[in-house]
């Protein structure tokens, strides 16, 4: 089939960028969206033009590298599907697809459809872990964890860090991403000792990055390829609220909205 791709082209973060339109006429319905871009890129290179840069790695929906907007929807029209697993049979011959990068101040654009999501790493770095050094562990079965608790933790832990939540959120908020990690670790007994500290530190970092705030709208969970539930955000809010009520001296608890700071990085 034949598709028209309207793709955002931008050389680097300083360039202004604009849409360019390409027609790909040998699209097979079995192809993935990324394979369709591969085909386009091959023909661009052969014509001596620059191929479209897009991020990808595992191409099986788990590494979280890929992602862009297709016709205004993060990861395209299929629910719970990353662009690498989105097959072209979901489109019709003659369709026009608008491909646009994630747009958020916290995700500065690098090139074409590639953005810098290191803000996510900073949030994890601030406290998205359980402080246990190698060799410190007791036997895995010493701690009994009910199946339901383990399942609930797993639901939150399934996050792949692709950034679709931020991209889909009208406020460009990272609440679903941050909430997912707080919920994953906070649900498990192993994560309880650091729960307050984790909530304070991660929320502080989330706010220090250039993300917007959460308005509980739910676009994030609709766009999430792993369908992380919106309730993880409530979990973050609860942990943060309870932790804020307790007196703690040693935690970096604050938040100067870091727009200028983050934007420069």
């Amino acid at each position: 089939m034949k598709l028209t791709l309207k793709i955002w082209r931008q050389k680097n973060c300083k360039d202004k960028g604009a849409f360019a339109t390409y027609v790909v006429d040998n699209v097979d319905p079995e192809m993935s969206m990324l394979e369709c871009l591969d085909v386009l890129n091959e023909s661009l290179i052969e014509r001596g033009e620059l191929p479209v840069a897009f991020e990808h790695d595992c191409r099986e929906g788990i590494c979280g590298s890929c992602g862009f907007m297709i016709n205004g929807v993060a990861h395209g029209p299929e629910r719970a599907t990353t662009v690498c697993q989105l097959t072209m049979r979901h489109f019709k011959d003659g369709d026009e697809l608008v491909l646009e990068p994630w747009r958020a101040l916290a995700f500065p654009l690098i090139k074409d459809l590639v953005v810098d999501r290191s803000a996510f790493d900073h949030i994890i770095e601030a406290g998205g872990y359980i402080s246990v050094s190698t060799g410190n562990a007791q036997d895995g079965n010493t701690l009994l964890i009910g199946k339901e608790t383990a399942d609930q933790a797993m639901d939150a832990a399934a996050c792949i860090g692709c950034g679709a939540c931020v991209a889909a959120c009208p406020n460009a908020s990272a609440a679903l991403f941050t909430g997912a990690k707080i919920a994953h670790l906070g649900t498990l007994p192993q994560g309880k000792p650091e729960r307050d500290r984790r909530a304070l530190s991660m929320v502080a970092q989330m706010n220090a990055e250039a993300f917007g705030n959460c308005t509980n709208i739910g676009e994030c969970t609709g766009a999430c390829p792993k369908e992380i539930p919106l309730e993880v955000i409530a979990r973050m809010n609860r942990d943060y609220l309870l932790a804020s009520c307790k007196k703690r001296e040693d935690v970096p608890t604050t938040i100067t909205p870091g727009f200028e700071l983050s934007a420069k990085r």
Partner: protein
Amino acid sequence: MTLDARIPAGPIEQAWDKARFDMKLVNPANKRKHSLIVVGSGLAGASASASLGELGYNVKCFCFQDSPRRAHSIAAQGGINAAKNYPNDGESVYRLFYDTVKGGDFRAREANIYRLAEISNHIIDQCVAQGVPFAREYGGTLTNRSFGGAQVSRTFYARGQTGQQLLLGAYQALERQVHAGTVTMIPRTEMLDLIVIDGQARGIVARNLVTGKFSVHIADAVILATGGYGNVYYLSTNAKGSNATAIWRAYKRGALFANPCFTQIHPTCIPVSGEYQSKLTLMSESLRNDGRIWVPKLKGDTRPPNEIPENERDYYLERRYPSFGNLVPRDVASRNAKAVCDEGRGVGKTGLGVYLDFSEAIARLGEKTIRERYGNLFDMYQRITDEDPYKVPMRIYPAIHYTMGGLWVDYQLQSTIPGLFVLGEANFSDHGANRLGASALMQGLSDGYFIIPYTVGNYLATNKFAKVDESHAEVQSAVTAAQQKIETLLSIKGKRTVDSFHRELGKILWDYCGMARTAQGLEIAIGKIRALREEYWQNVTVPGSGDDLNQSLEKAGRVADFFELAELLCIDARDRNESCGGHFREEYQTPEGEAQRDDEHYSYVAAWGYRGPDAPPELNKEPLEFHYVHPSQRSYK
């Protein structure tokens, strides 16, 4: 070169204890004065960086992706083995050791495997403590399942995303050390050369993939955890970015490359659908626990599967291997799938596929149970193929999945270059000629969490490190060479894209050095690879420049290395005149068509040394001795 594997003398049960006791320790106050480089941030790299950071070393960790969390360990689905024996079904450290040696078709080192089996239990404990949400029973204990042909339930899992959860655990431990200031994470940066000074590995040359800038990083030791080279075949289950550049450049600096021809073909992948295919998607092997594999008895039977009556179906694995049935090891399952397709009984559009049928299991256990066990895998299959596996049998076909070969390392995981350590899939150490399911995660984490922290310490404590800076002649020549390579690739400006070369290279390898190999075919392959490589350096076209994000240029450098590696892979396969594990030479098979080993002549590790661009590589042999598990013909009948 004589290869000393430094295996401790004495009983195997005490080897690792003894080795640890014999190792020299680094004074805690001196640890932060030692700098270490870790390349790669998958299970092995992230766990090594985190553990070394915790000990107080000054660590720099590199990855080519935008974040360490993207490493391809994340895609492992099925699980991780450990000798916990929670199900009380006869598991023990010794049995895991025995199964791994046997599964590897007696081409791996006993002592390494024993250590791996011992450490396996600590890995589970460590991961649980980190918050990895392993599957649990209602009573709260950890759940186990049998996996990939094992007769005991020793596999721990987190839905179909075990690799993801283990990697995130290691990634979080790594980020904790980044926060503590002991580890500096350097993403979007690719290692392009190893710096060797006075015989010691002392650093790397790296290139920032966004700015194109080269940088030099000096350290007291370099640890490579860069994964396998399966992408040399172009189509594989590896991530698109997975590459062999780091280990290949280390090979060219003097590290030996061991058993390159030991590649693993995974039996349950979604078949190729067209020319544009960019990678193959694995369906977890756990599916074989309940799915039955079959093809029509008749050649060229194009009826839809549901219309083929029971008595016209050939459940060929159950027929040929009554005791293991559909659970035979990966190499056996893959080879049999190829055999039936070669007979013209393959299914699907291309005739390259076999059915994996759940109808019997659904009838016996109910759709709900099947959905609980494999729901996410079925969804994935349906997403890709648009067929509903609850109603129609899945179509599967083997694909390149894992490479057992890699840089040669001794018991301490040190390569033949002092100070260069290699972990995880990048080394050759633990899986012999075939890896058992759910063992890759185990090895990566074992190397990273529990082995390298000791052995690197021993190396640092027993060696002296002269001060080196960027102006050193060796450093400068390495940088210049790396820069020149990039410039050359950009300046060829030929007619063919990098991908078209890579695809052709992959096809040559798959045809002549895939599931079945012959001496004659390998000769042809070597000739074709050389010719294609020559064309590559004349006719490749790499658009854009070297001073910004240029994904074609990244690929071009990696494919250039794949060409050289492909040749070595074929040379090794040609040289090994036997069949073992994933290496199946058609000339060497039993009358029933099973792999026939030649223990008398080939019970060794083939460790190849680089001798220059046009000279044939040098073969070094590390003889393998089996004191505990005596080599026998593997039988899964």
